[in-house]
């Protein structure tokens, strides 16, 4: 196992986070902009004009900067890529109907679908790898040391291919993925850390793109999952899309403008839809007010009760999995001691009401747990699991997570039916041994089709892989006895080994995963393999430290033009100038931590100035100027809110 710290990563549909165990408590590691959430958005920077010669690769940005590009250059941005992970061509095609990005023209059936992004093409794991690399860098920046190992969370209901794709993404990003942890289970770990709890808890995890329900039993520090269920195609995205469709329809009906052919405009409406959704969690009414390309305004009130009626079918889809999970765990709602809410969508009051009804909470004088930030709790739990794996900490040494496989594993039997070999909700690792024979004299091959799912017919289940047992010694039909061992590991990923028992010969298996990249493909997609090299790492730290110094120096440079500057005492101005000169000198050196320290000193010296500036900005706005002109007057300080934010590091 790699030396150094192990971080916990929540690779989310909408946002991603990285956390680690600081002493006895998990904490989220902020990015360079000071924010904890990294939007799961990846963008190609605009092509320079004139276009450079062949071989030019545009810079790839991740997070808030990429999200800002969504309206300007939507064809160069991809988001919600988690929905495409481990999916086949047809599924991706269906999925993409709702998104502005599209498949590359030359994608062939059977290969991992590639998405066209500007002039480049990427598979879903590659896009995820860019997000993971950003998180890795944020952590390295924070620790001032390389980070090479991580625990990554996945929806509990992710199938084998989706899990494998996530692991592949980690490898491409230069991370050894020590464990994939199910998101609801991670949340339970985060909640269970500070209390020695006993009892049965349900984790209701309604995120941006996926829904999971897990029921766990806690005893003596052991978190034993009893059952899990969910829908990997259900989340806040679906609510956004509902609002988006209604808005687009009304804009067309009332203003005769069809925005669907204008991706930038669609993104602007989508943004307004998301804002309305968020507002409706606290307000009884939200407003759409969107300027259309023809200058008209689309304005509309959305009362909360209308919104709730609208989203009811989406929310109702979470109820079935909850009931099934209870049945599978063999318990009634009354036997659930506590309910934990995870995921941004659980902020919606109608979701809370549904949960309350499902688990008879208020009827029993109970409330769901929401103490931990629903956006952060999964990453915090991943950090706890990372600490368990590192095995060096007192606070987690008694904790152990026993998770289950969400879907039954089966093999296609005669007539296309499924013979189940590992039932869903079996504790993992789990194994099954099956024996196969030949049907024809002298037959040397046996083909096996492995599927995942609960349906009776193989065709209705998810095809996992096809195996060819080869090199069977020629014998009479029915005589060979090939033992095949199926093993689902602690990440929920399947491994297969086979042996011919009569001859004692190891049968060769050629595994052809139905979806997924080959080892060689993953190898070839590893991002900047030099990323881990020590020399390069130091270089990168230096560049980043200098960039941060540059940002604050530019802001300080413009400071005297601001009205707020006049409000400072001479002593304060002197301190700023001294700190500025110190940073300018230090920046010439090559020691990243010295530059960071000087940046921090200047940041402290300018803190009061930054506060004054915010106050003046507000009063300027009140005096009748718009925020836009106010911010123009103040340079970047308002539109780039983090220019003055403290640079956090250790």
């Amino acid at each position: 196992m790699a030396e150094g710290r192990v971080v916990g990563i929540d690779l989310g549909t909408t946002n991603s986070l990285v956390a680690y165990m600081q002493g006895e408590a998990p904490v989220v590691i902020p990015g360079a902009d000071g924010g904890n959430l990294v939007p799961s958005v990846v963008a190609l920077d605009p092509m320079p004009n004139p276009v450079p010669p062949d071989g030019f690769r545009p810079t790839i940005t991740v997070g808030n900067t990429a999200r800002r590009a969504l309206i300007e250059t939507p064809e160069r941005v991809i988001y919600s890529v988690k929905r495409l992970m481990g999916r086949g061509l047809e599924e991706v095609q269906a999925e993409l109907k709702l998104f502005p990005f599209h498949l590359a023209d030359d994608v062939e059936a059977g290969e991992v679908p590639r998405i066209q992004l500007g002039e480049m093409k990427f598979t879903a794991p590659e896009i995820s790898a860019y997000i993971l690399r950003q998180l890795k860098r944020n952590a390295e920046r924070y620790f001032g040391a390389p980070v090479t190992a991580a625990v990554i969370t996945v929806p509990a209901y992710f199938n084998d291919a989706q899990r494998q794709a996530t692991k592949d993404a980690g490898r491409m990003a230069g991370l050894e993925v020590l464990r994939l942890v199910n998101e609801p289970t991670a949340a339970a770990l985060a909640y269970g850390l500070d209390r020695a709890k006993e009892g049965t808890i349900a984790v209701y995890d309604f995120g941006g793109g996926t829904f999971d329900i897990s029921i766990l039993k806690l005893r003596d520090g052991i978190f034993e999952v009893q059952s899990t269920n969910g829908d990997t195609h259900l989340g806040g995205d679906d609510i956004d899309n509902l609002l988006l469709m209604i808005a687009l329809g009304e804009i067309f009906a009332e203003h005769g403008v069809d925005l669907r052919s204008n991706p930038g405009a669609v993104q602007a409406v989508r943004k307004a839809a998301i804002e309305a959704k968020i507002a409706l969690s606290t307000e009884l009414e939200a407003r759409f007010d969107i300027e259309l390309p023809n200058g008209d305004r689309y304005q509309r009130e959305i009362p909360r009760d209308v919104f709730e009626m609208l989203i009811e079918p989406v929310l109702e889809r979470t109820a079935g999995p909850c009931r099934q999970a209870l049945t599978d765990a063999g318990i009634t709602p009354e036997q659930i001691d506590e309910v934990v809410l995870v995921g941004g969508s659980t902020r919606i009051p109608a979701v809370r009401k549904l949960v309350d009804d499902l688990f008879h909470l208020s009827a029993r004088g109970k409330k769901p747990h929401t103490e931990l930030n629903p956006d952060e709790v999964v990453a915090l739990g991943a950090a706890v699991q990372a600490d368990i794996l590192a095995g060096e900490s007192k606070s987690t040494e008694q904790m152990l997570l026993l998770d289950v496989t969400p879907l039954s594993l089966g093999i296609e039997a005669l007539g296309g039916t499924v013979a189940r070999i590992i039932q869903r909700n079996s504790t993992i690792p789990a194994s099954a041994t099956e024996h196969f024979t030949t049907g024809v004299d002298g037959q040397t091959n046996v083909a096996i089709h492995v599927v995942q799912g609960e349906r009776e017919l193989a065709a209705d289940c998810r095809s996992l892989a096809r195996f060819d047992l080869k090199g069977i010694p020629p014998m009479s039909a029915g005589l060979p006895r090939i033992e095949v061992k199926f093993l689902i590991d602690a990440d929920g990923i399947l491994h297969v080994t086979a042996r011919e028992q009569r001859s004692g010969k190891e049968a060769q298996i050629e595994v052809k995963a139905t979806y997924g990249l080959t080892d060689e493909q993953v190898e070839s997609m590893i991002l900047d393999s030099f990323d881990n090299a020590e020399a390069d790492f130091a270089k990168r730290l230096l560049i980043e430290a200098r960039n941060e110094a540059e940002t604050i120096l530019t802001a300080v440079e413009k400071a005297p033009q601001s009205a707020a500057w006049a409000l400072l005492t001479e002593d304060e101005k002197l301190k700023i100038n001294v700190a500025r000169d110190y940073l300018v000198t230090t920046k010439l050196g090559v020691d990243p931590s010295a530059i960071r320290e000087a940046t921090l000193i200047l940041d402290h010296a300018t803190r009061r100035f930054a506060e004054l500036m915010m106050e003046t900005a507000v009063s300027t706005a009140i005096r009748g100027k718009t925020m836009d002109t106010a911010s123009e007057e103040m340079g970047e300080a308002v539109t780039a809110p983090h220019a003055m934010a403290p640079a956090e590091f250790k």
Partner: protein
Amino acid sequence: MFKVLDSAVPVACWSCSVGHSDSTLFCPHCSKIQPPPGGDYFTVFGIDPHLNLDLHALESEFHRLSRRLHPDRFARALDNEKEWSLADTALLNDAYRTLKDPIRRTEYLLKLEDAVPAESATGKDRKDVSRVPADLLEEAFELNMQLEEMRIARKTGEDDPALQASLEEAKTKYSALLAAVDVDLRNEWRAWDAGNEATRPSVQKKMVGLLDRRRYLSNLVRDVNEVLGA
């Protein structure tokens, strides 16, 4: 803690080279994890094959062993230890899943005792055949006809209160028969646990019959519930 079977093959520990029985998960000498042991699911828990088990003790032992064997405990271990941790934990989980459930436990024990007719085919040629108990043959045929009628009625949206009532009645009846089988099975468990090599074969035969009957009845109850609940 672990029963050393006389028949167990002695092997040498990969780490300290001291010999031990191949039915143990850890070397008794140096405590290092060992490759998956031979022996059955009962041996994994260090208990004698019994059909009446103390489930609470079983769970505690499962937790205790999980803490020592789970791959989470071997994240920084050698590659072979990692591999054995995975294989051993899979064995432990399979054993626990089988033993904690009374029906699976009974089926497993009967298989160990070679009391079930060898599966004619396993793997992809396997089929779940459940023989119809002779005394239920006629009624079950009738019930299946009713179920089919009800499914058709549901599809066409027709309401048939008489059929509905008849199915409700069947549900009560077959649920009661199922419960009766469980009582009978429990009695046989006691007989088996208290028995010896001479008495057990006849008990086993009865249990095979009861399990067949139970499987058939529980499928019927499931089908009726499905149709009524639809």
